[in-house]
């Protein structure tokens, strides 16, 4: 009888050979790639919107060899890094008082939650009105995307700090700065690190979407250029690159998080 969760729950054998898992993954991957190729060559969709795999691979290689791409990558990287740093700092600065001051947190919390739920990209026109249509607005979008999860998680983290710790600090008559660095910050470390990962991922998405919508530099701009000029394989290449970088940055953040 085939191995099932039901039999296992009832006490059957529970060893899964690792090669079986790898086999499933390999077969799935091949099937997906095969389906792609079939779709590309079938003519079912308008020719060119799903290019054959070789064209996509060629475009990827071509992209990596294009010097101009690295300039755009630099712009995007700067917008993400600076936006994330700003949003993170602001998030902590707001989250601590929100968590520490119960009344303040209850008063301000609903408004923060409300803005947190909305898709940040709709704030792009405001960012453009305030900071222009260049790098400033993309940075602002990155910061706005990073701010909310950090503020909310930090507030929650502060609220969860064992009051004993605070009492200990006060009994030693620590100054506010010492309280922050010796008591609160170490206690918050874990929550900060978790929110850092989420915030970074959101900052990447926020910046890139803003670039795709309206910009004159960056990887998102490049994607839009290729879309406008109908250079479809190049569009796939840029988006694959963007996706890979986003996923890579995310897992890097995850690894850093585990270190802490």
């Amino acid at each position, binding site marked *: 009888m085939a191995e099932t969760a039901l039999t296992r729950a009832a006490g059957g054998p529970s060893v899964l050979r690792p090669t079986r898992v790898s086999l499933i993954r390999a077969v799935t991957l091949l099937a997906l790639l095969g389906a792609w190729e079939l779709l590309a060559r079938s003519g079912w969709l308008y020719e060119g919107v799903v290019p054959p795999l070789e064209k996509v691979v060629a475009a990827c290689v071509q992209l990596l060899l294009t010097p101009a791409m690295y300039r755009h990558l630099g712009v995007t990287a700067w917008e993400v890094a600076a936006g994330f740093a700003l949003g993170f700092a602001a998030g902590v600065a707001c989250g601590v008082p929100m968590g520490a001051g119960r009344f303040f947190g209850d008063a301000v919390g609903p408004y923060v*939650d409300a803005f947190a739920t909305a898709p940040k990209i*709709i704030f792009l*026109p405001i960012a453009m009105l305030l900071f222009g249509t260049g790098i400033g607005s993309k940075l602002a979008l990155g910061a706005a995307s990073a701010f909310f999860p950090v503020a909310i998680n930090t507030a929650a983290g502060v609220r969860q700090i064992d009051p004993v710790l605070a009492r200990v600090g006060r009994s030693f008559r620590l100054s506010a700065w010492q309280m922050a660095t010796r008591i609160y910050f170490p206690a918050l470390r874990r929550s900060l690190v978790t929110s850092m990962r989420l915030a970074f991922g959101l900052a990447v998405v926020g910046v890139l*979407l803003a670039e795709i919508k309206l910009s004159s530099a960056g990887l998102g701009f490049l994607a839009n250029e290729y879309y406008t000029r109908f250079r479809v394989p190049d569009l796939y290449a840029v988006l694959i690159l963007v996706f890979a970088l986003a996923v890579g940055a995310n897992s890097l953040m995850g690894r850093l998080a585990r270190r802490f």
Partner: protein
Amino acid sequence: MDRRRAAALAGLAGVTVAAALLEAVIRAGWISPLIIAPPSSLPGAFAKLWREGFVLRPFALTIAQAFAATALAALAGIPWGYWLWRRPALGAAYEPWIGAAFAAPTILLFPLFLVIFGRGYATTIFVGFLAAVIPVVLKTREAFLGVPRVLLEVGRSLHLSAPALARRIAFPAAVPGIFTGLRLGLIYALVNIIGMEFLIDFGGLGRIVSEMYFRYEIPAMYAAILLIVAVSWTFLAALARLETWLRPR
């Protein structure tokens, strides 16, 4: 006065004071009203949006797309989540991929969907579907995994066949968890769809923001943005309320 109510009033008061300060700063000429709309212009701008039909119909369109996307996500995601539980090999094989997909920014691929599906509801609903299906799959599998072993053993001791066991015992026990997945899926779908509407200038509420910016109707643009904030938040709050109401105890 109860503390929560006092805090809510304080929050409202704070917002009012901030708005009054902003109004003063704009009237003094320090900030151009063409950059930040004076708060006093917002009610009029909202009324204008309403009169021109830029509120109800777009709202209905956006919500309808969100529900459609979530329905599709349920159709695809619940069976998928079920099979990932029923066949542990599949579950072990795909789980890291799905976890990665959850964190992955699939909305970034939207220009590709634009190219493939064209600029229409197919693209927006597809993006909503992608955003919703992952939490549905994950939560469904989690829900089935959380079914108490005891229940399954009771079923087995009654000699129920595997499908009957699934249908009569596992599934009903998993429903609350599945519902959580659907709730999450719906809110993700809504948020992503609004974002898509803004990005591709098509559809309901998100398109209105883009349109008002393009027409340089700044107060109307701010009004539309605030409307979206209100809608997203109300939706989230309502769904959370619904879930606690549906779950007994």
